[in-house]
């Protein structure tokens, strides 16, 4: 998955719901770590549609 940083408002909702802690809050951005399995739950709670899941 990818986070569009131009849209992201740093609400950290995505990181809070990630079942495997793949999203890490850094100082000024959310980092998608290598363990992300593209499950897509984060995209469903992004208020602004900043998260896109990779097409398989």
């Amino acid at each position: 998955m990818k986070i569009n940083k131009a849209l992201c408002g740093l609400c950290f909702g995505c990181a809070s719901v990630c079942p495997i802690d793949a999203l890490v809050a850094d100082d000024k951005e959310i980092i998608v770590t290598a363990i992300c399995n593209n499950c897509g739950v984060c995209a469903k709670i992004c208020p602004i549609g900043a998260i896109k899941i990779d097409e398989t």
Partner: protein
Amino acid sequence: MTKLSVDIAIVGAGPAGTSTAIAAAKKGVNTLILERKTNPGIPVQCGEAIGKTGPGIAEIGIPENCIINPIRGFRVYSPSGIAVDFAKDEIDGYIIDRRVFDKELLVEAVEAGSEVLVGTNVVDLKYKEGTVSHLIAKKMGEKIEINAKVVVGADGVNSIVAKKTGLRKNIKAIDLDTSVGYEMINVEVDDLELMEFYTGQNIAPRGYVWIFPKGENRANVGIGVGMQDKFASKTAYEYLNDFIKNHPIGSKKCAKGKIIEIRIGAIPLGGPNKKNIADGVILVGDAAGQVHPITGGGMGYSIVCGSIAGNVAADCINEGDVSEKKIAAYEEQWRERYGYEFRQALKLRKALEKASDKQLDELAKILTGELLVGISSGEKISKKKIAKIIIKRPGLWKLLGDYLLA
């Protein structure tokens, strides 16, 4: 590497953290706040409404310079536009400026004797003999280590302290509301002293749109909705834009509106965590789930619970025992105060989630503002009164009967 040692380390300088710090510092314990942001309180992620009497904010006091507009009550619009009003004779709350509010509470904490490190992101917790002993943080990029007798997680919806201690691993997506808010100029409001709420499955599924007046022609217009697929069929942003463009009432009010700020937020609505304490650890605010499951309001609860947390933590430190057993006084005191209200509101919200627009309209015809306030807080008399009215209406009874009888 810089190493610090304090009595109480508070992660997060929002209202939960600063009110904890104010209480603790006033009791004379060595208090440190760690705040990820370089500018605490910014960006604002909030509708900025706070009750005066509701969750007991009156005893804390709201800094006067953050008050933008006094409020006496609210108006809820049902899906077809039926209004339910509630207004007190006297001021019952405020629309505040969160930037000023958060900053003033931080000033108060520091003036009470607390230390603060801004631009300091807590990334890990270290354990020693089963209890938390150190926080690892990055202060403007530099690694620092903080030893603390008590760690307070006031670090919000994505609380690192909650995750690393296991008190809340992650939030279930169905328990999170997702929110976008605009501050707007040239918005018409019904009444400067009323907050407006708009409901409906196509307007704000599992949530509502709010218009909070900030003055003549100035308002916060925002929305909270449940997760997509389960509740919503598009993003909160799209629902809000739809409301402004197409809602029969909202579109007229916002027709000339100019957006001067966009706010993006996440609201934990699933109720408090099962446990908000461990040996030397306390969670408070959004990290603890101290948010009203229907209104999504959290500031008032955070401040009162923060004060309890600060007082209990300081007492434990002063008495040389920070074990979970001793810290349990915090859990007991805040649950005594809000536990019942949160449990009731959570049950009611789960029932209301299933309500059709028709049922919401029917409810709006029956309910007065007083009953609506009563039922949302689980007040027994209101529940009884409503039960009497809707027992003759099978559809509504099926929706709410269990809640009203419980």
